[in-house]
């Protein structure tokens, strides 16, 4: 069974709460043997101001005995941070400046060490495992925000691009399951050589919003997926969000 989380956003306490909760999801016949973190490990919230970013990365890459080593994908915050170091697709982080101000840009830049930046550079955009795509946004990019309101044809495109049947994403921070139960249509193609017709059919595809670990004060949400039984469950863990003692 896989535990899948996203959106820690520099909230170390929330992440610790999830790590403590994950072993409880194991049962006699199936244990949680993989932990995925779908991006946004670091963040810049009004509360944290990035204070824990470096510690969080260190906590991720050096699990304690008995803990799973998380498999981490690139998230939007990581991409923004890399852009500040001229290592991302675009220079700077204009949306960050607009929302949080220029001080936030410098603060985010200072909140991660050089080794943390190198670690973020090594992150993949997505993981494809069995027939599942796991990504912060999608295979299109970290900014791709899939939600319950996303039209079904867009979900089909995001699944079809990597020929996946399941898509786990964290960009929205929402917990949901989007079942593409069935689809049909008629596909007619005419070329210079002739015409062919065939039915369009799909069945049993779905997308999952895994929730957010660090965005909601005092409550972390993540999900577990059992690939053997093709079953997903969500879990919420309360944690102390008070000031550091």
């Amino acid at each position, binding site marked *: 069974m896989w535990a899948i989380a996203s959106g820690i956003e520099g909230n170390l306490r929330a992440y610790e709460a999830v790590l403590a909760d994950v072993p409880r999801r194991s049962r006699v016949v199936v244990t949680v043997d993989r932990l995925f973190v779908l991006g946004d490990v670091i963040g810049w919230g009004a509360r944290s101001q990035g204070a824990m970013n470096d510690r969080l990365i260190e906590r991720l890459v050096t699990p304690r005995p008995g803990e799973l080593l998380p498999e981490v994908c690139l998230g939007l915050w990581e991409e923004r941070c890399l852009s500040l170091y001229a290592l991302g697709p675009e220079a700077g982080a204009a949306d960050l400046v607009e929302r949080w101000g220029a001080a936030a840009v410098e603060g985010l830049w200072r909140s991660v060490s050089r080794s943390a930046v190198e670690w973020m550079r090594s992150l993949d955009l997505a993981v494809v495992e069995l027939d599942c795509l796991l990504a912060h946004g999608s295979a*299109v990019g970290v900014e791709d925000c899939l939600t*319950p309101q996303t*039209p*079904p*044809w*867009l979900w*089909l*495109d995001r699944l*079809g*691009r*990597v020929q996946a049947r399941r898509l786990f994403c964290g960009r929205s921070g*929402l*917990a*949901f*399951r*989007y*079942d*593409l*139960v*069935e*689809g*049909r*249509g*008629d*596909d*007619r*193609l*005419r*070329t*210079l050589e002739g015409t062919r017709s065939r039915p*369009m059919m*799909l069945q049993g595809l779905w997308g999952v*919003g895994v*929730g957010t670990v660090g965005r*909601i004060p005092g*409550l972390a*949400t993540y999900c577990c997926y059992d690939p053997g039984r093709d079953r997903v469950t*969500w*879990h*919420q863990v309360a944690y102390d969000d008070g000031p550091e003692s």
Partner: protein
Amino acid sequence: MKRAILSCIHGNLEAFDAVLLDLERQGAEAIHCLGDLVGYGPYPNEVVERVRSLAIPTVQGCWDEDIVEGLNACECSYPSLLAERRGRLAHRWTDGVLTADNRAFLAQLPESLAVETAAGRLVFVHGSPSSAHEYLLAEMDAFMALERVLGAGADVLFCGHTHIPYARSLDGIQLRTVIAEAPDPQSIPGDAPPVDHTVTVPVRHLINAGSVGEPRHGRPHATYVLFDDESGAVELREVPYAVDKTCAAILERGLPMIFAWRLAKGLDYAERAEDASHVCAR
């Protein structure tokens, strides 16, 4: 109104003139061009000047973009190293002969154009609505093709880039979804009943105009499409022209002989996209 949609002229003036003559004979009242006016062919300036003189609404193709912004060396635009090497040669030659005026014209071309008609909203792009470098191949997954058309807000989406014409219709589409979401941030899916919904999509069309100047369907003839925006009728046109003249000009003007050979065969020759769903990272 009968509209002629052309694409991928690639500096082939002979082919372009033959198509212009043909579409006039067919009674076309409007012309649209899906870009790639230059590249590989021996008459880039002449083709651009012909388009400008006829005021043909034109979108920017990947070659037009590369000539303006510099060659996109990303291998995603080429399916092989051989194709990339040849592309670089063609780019360098075209870059050397294109006038500043014509370059400026290519620079101001839009990424897409749209027209409202009785047949619905017609949208014109070079590759796909999201990228001039994306190939919308004839046999791409039907639901992904549907997403490209709907994503563009089109009833009919015209594209080029693949150099092989086709007309595809996607009809009778129904998609059923069941969505379970957490009713609030403190809840999880399952705390509220899921929503079962079926959406019906009216017929959509994806039409590829082929290539005027560098066809890849196995014959050297220029291709384009005619579209009747009242009846919705589509005609894939194939137009013979004096290929040997273009081949001779390729050699006279110092372009690689392989371009003339390939043109005479109507082959794609290592330029076929290997992955229909692949999009250039740029």
